[in-house]
């Protein structure tokens, strides 16, 4: 799990798991927050390359990190988000919060 978190400059890169649900979302959020605080990173990048399933818990992870970093001018990004994940983000009104990056 620890190798899925990487700090590059001012960005925390998180490789999201295959399935994102309530069961593992708490752990991801807590780990991310530890990096945000201890490494003082301003932005968070979520990589959905591996992800085949996500429910509203994933939305909670993104929204929670956004709230933590946006007051300091930080941004959240999503890379490798397939149609399914894009649709979930759109339905949750996150399209103005998360910047989608095409590879």
């Amino acid at each position: 799990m620890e190798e899925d978190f990487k700090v590059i400059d001012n960005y925390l890169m998180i490789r999201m798991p295959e399935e994102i649900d309530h069961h593992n979302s708490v752990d991801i959020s807590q780990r991310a927050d530890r990096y945000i605080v201890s490494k003082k990173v301003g932005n968070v990048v979520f990589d959905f390359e591996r992800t085949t399933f996500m429910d509203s818990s994933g939305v909670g992870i993104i929204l929670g990190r956004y709230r933590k970093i946006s007051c300091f001018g930080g941004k959240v990004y999503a890379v490798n988000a397939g149609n399914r994940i894009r649709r979930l983000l759109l339905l949750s009104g996150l399209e103005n919060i998360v910047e989608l990056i095409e590879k």
Partner: protein
Amino acid sequence: MIEVREKKDYRLVTNEMRLEFAAVSDNESFARMAVSAFIAPLNPTLEELSDVKTAVSEAVTNAIIHGYGNRGCITDRVQMNCELKGDILQVEIIDRGVGIEDVDRAMQPLFTTRPEWERSGMGFAFMEAFMDDLEVVSSPEQGTLVRMYKKIGLGGWIVSEE
């Protein structure tokens, strides 16, 4: 107690299953896999499969974290009843937890009783978006029943029309 087993007309029912599992978060993925396997014979499209899995995941998560307050008690139970009438899937997720006082308010997007848990408040909205129909029956201290319907195999129908 929420009445679940009313007198039922079985004439149109083509398949049925009932599951009961402990209200612990490990079982969220178990419930998703079980419902996927149940509808597999209908040849659902990937999209339909994702829709059903997401909706079931939301309902089961709600039962575990809101119904039973996320206490992880092994004797708390969530029931999942699935039924097919031809290509119409009905899923019921039932808990005997705290219940919902105001169902309409709970179903509003972004509403959450637990802002400190970083829930998105999108659970019911996702169930509504991904299933064809959604009913919620609940009463305080009795529990909650979520009943969802979806027609499966629409993909095959579209292909054969073309």
